């Protein structure tokens, strides 16, 4: 099935309904699968489908229509419609670019839903998290391990259920030791283990990786994250007002906090149809790019550090400092800009700041291009990064990774381009999509280098062409139970937020999926076949952000799906099969 066939059956595209084809296509191929269809914005639609059709609909949208799974999450809607709900948001990047969210209602008694992971591996983390947080059982999900909750968390306490717990509650630990089972899929017990992190010299972050090695060669790798889960989603839903959450989202990440803040603000703005002034949009765009600048410079610097080229590391950090200065100049803070309010931004760019900013951008561009020459001419750099940590295209397609990672593997995914018209001012600024074909660390570094130049251009353009007008829209009303997606292209890739407003001046549900959350699952495949010496570099080439989601562990759907599903799951699966026509 190609996009052409879609056009054959599709009704005339409706005005202001971008992506209507996909809904029509689902109706055409899976008649009566759709229970409900809701449009949030002109390019965001949520379809509620029957559980029995979920896998097929998802498969059609994902593999046949060029969909990429952006986020999978649960929601406790028992107070609204008596059910739990599981959402799979797809970024449709076929011929028509739009967002389709597939929703299934989960029976509040059986609490089971059909796992799409065996078909679309990208959903594995989302579904595991739904299991942890809502206690809903994904039938057919091969991985029985916890994702987010720690090993010593009580078995039947699911924090995000509305009736579960207060956000301040700290249950008694149920076990003394770590019980997490690490999984060596390709090797055996004769493989030795190299631990990397949480306190490794290049990976001093709350994540634990273990490399199963034969000598120096990595046979397989497994990892676990979520050691400092901050419970932000719970916090936002129970304690904070809408505007405070904008400040909270700034702190999701220490590096790309602003993109989260914009993403969150967009969800509410989309849900309530708030028009953001053009000037505010451009200010947001500029700051998003400033963030990308310092993030990419950090990562390029770290790549030098990981291969032992510390001089490069220090030099890139010297340039990065200029971009930090730029941020300080424009926002008053080096990081965590705290600029966003729902409806716009709090602080304007003054003439003087803009001039100084442009001068800084030019300085950075000059120094950076010098340093790129230095880096590429440095002995051994190429042999260290070329051909290392390859992310194969099929893995990339299956797991929906984002950012430079997927662009380096030859896919042209960049929310700024793909969904540019509905993302701040990206439709108006000049830049190109950077992508490479090889999928190795070198490609990722080169993509980042290209993006740094793009960002510099955008920042300069934005500061130069800042539209006149207000910077904040005020005086709109919060309507309960409206929801929408918000998304931004963070330095590490697309950050996706989803919010549903509540009836008490608080959010009913806020879901934040940071870029790295989508990227971690592919790491194991990139590490395989490389050596211990490459591991820090490969992990680093993801530009991983641990705090971003604070939600990272392994995803491990093997490629040979039929082999990996445990017997029990198959059993359950076949029981379900009696009642439902879904297929693997």
């Amino acid at each position: 099935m190609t996009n052409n066939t879609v056009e054959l059956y599709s009704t005339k595209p409706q005005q202001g309904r971008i992506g209507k084809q996909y809904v029509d296509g689902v109706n055409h191929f899976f008649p009566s699968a759709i229970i409900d269809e809701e449009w949030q914005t002109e390019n965001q639609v949520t379809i509620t489908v029957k559980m029995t059709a979920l896998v097929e609909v998802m498969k059609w949208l994902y593999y046949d229509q060029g969909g990429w799974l952006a986020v999978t999450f649960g929601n406790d809607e028992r107070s609204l419609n008596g059910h739990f709900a599981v959402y799979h948001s797809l970024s449709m990047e076929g011929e028509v670019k739009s967002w389709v969210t597939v929703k299934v209602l989960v029976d509040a008694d059986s609490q089971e839903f059909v796992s799409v992971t065996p078909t679309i591996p990208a959903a594995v983390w989302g579904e595991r998290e739904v299991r942890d947080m809502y206690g809903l059982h994904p039938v057919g999900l091969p991985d029985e391990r916890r994702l987010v909750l720690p090993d010593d968390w009580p078995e039947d306490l699911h924090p995000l259920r509305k009736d579960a717990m207060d956000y301040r509650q700290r249950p008694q630990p149920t076990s003394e030791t770590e019980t997490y089972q690490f999984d060596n899929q390709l090797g055996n017990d004769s493989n030795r283990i190299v631990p990397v992190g949480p306190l490794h010299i290049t990976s001093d972050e709350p994540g634990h990786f273990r490399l199963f090695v034969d000598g120096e060669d990595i046979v397989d790798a497994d990892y676990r994250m979520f050691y400092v889960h901050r419970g932000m989603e719970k916090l936002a839903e129970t304690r904070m007002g809408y505007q405070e959450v904008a400040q909270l989202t700034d702190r999701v990440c220490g590096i790309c906090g602003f993109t989260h803040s914009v993403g969150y603000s967009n969800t509410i703005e989309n849900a309530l149809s708030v028009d953001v002034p053009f000037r505010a949009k451009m200010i947001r765009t500029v700051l998003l790019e400033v963030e990308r600048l310092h993030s990419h410079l950090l990562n390029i610097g770290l790549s030098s550090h990981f291969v032992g080229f510390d001089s490069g590391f220090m030099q890139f950090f010297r340039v990065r400092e200029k971009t930090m200065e730029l941020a300080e100049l424009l926002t008053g803070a080096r990081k965590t800009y705290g600029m966003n309010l729902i409806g716009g931004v709090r602080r304007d760019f003054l003439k003087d700041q803009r001039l100084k900013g442009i001068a800084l951008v030019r300085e950075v561009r000059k120094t950076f291009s010098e340093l790129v020459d230095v880096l590429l001419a440095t002995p051994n750099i190429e042999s260290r990064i070329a051909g290392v940590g390859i992310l194969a295209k099929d893995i990339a397609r299956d797991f929906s990774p984002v950012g430079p990672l997927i662009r380096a593997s030859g896919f042209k995914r960049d929310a700024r381009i793909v969904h540019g018209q509905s993302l701040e001012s990206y439709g108006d600024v000049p830049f190109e999509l950077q992508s490479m074909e090889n999928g190795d660390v070198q490609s990722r570094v080169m993509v980042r280098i290209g993006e740094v130049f793009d960002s510099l251009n955008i920042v300069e353009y934005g500061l130069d062409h800042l539209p006149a007008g207000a910077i904040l829209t005020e005086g709109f009303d919060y309507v309960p139970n409206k929801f929408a997606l918000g998304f931004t292209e963070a330095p590490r890739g697309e950050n996706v937020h989803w919010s549903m407003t509540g009836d008490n001046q608080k959010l009913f549900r806020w879901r934040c999926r940071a870029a790295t959350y989508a990227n971690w699952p592919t790491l194991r495949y990139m590490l395989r076949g490389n050596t211990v010496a490459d591991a820090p570099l490969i992990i680093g080439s993801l530009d991983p952000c641990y705090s971003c989601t604070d939600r990272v562990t392994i995803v491990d759907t093997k490629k040979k799906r039929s082999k990996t599903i445990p017997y029990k799951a198959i059993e359950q699966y076949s029981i379900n099969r009696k009642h439902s026509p879904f297929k693997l």
Partner: protein
Amino acid sequence: MFKLLKTVIKTGEATKKYPFAPLEVCEDFRGKPELDAEQCLSCGACTRACPANALIMETDVKTGTRRWELSMARCIYCGRCEEVCPTKAITLSQNFELAVTRKEDLYEEAVFSLADCCQCGRPFVARKLLEYVLDTLAQSGVTGEQLKLRRQQLETCPECRRSNNMLDSENISHLRYLEEEL
């Protein structure tokens, strides 16, 4: 290799001898919030706006004071307090060197004396706020008796005022408006 050396020689030393030498920050840098207690009316707008609950206000009836407290441990330097302050009493300074050796030093506070109720004698409102309102009234052209009356009204605590109203027969009569109209 040589390019790098060239860059290095051109750059010289990029680091500063901080903390032994000062570190400049931008003009609009959002550092530690400083309260100008002289300006502050202790109206409490900042405490309501603070997303991080770093600012609190407490009224101590016994001593007749109101305490404004800023916890640097909670402050996120967003500057919301600065934005909402009616008298520009809070400004975000350029000071970012906030490490302290004792936890208590993380707190900043200002104490404002309260005005006593002219009837019951209990403290109920910040003196400066009261003065500010009266001054504003005076400047807006309210004079003489009127001002005196307003002063008396304003110096009465809400409780007393409520009981006054209850006792005031004019207010009790439900026919008051009807009578006026007639």
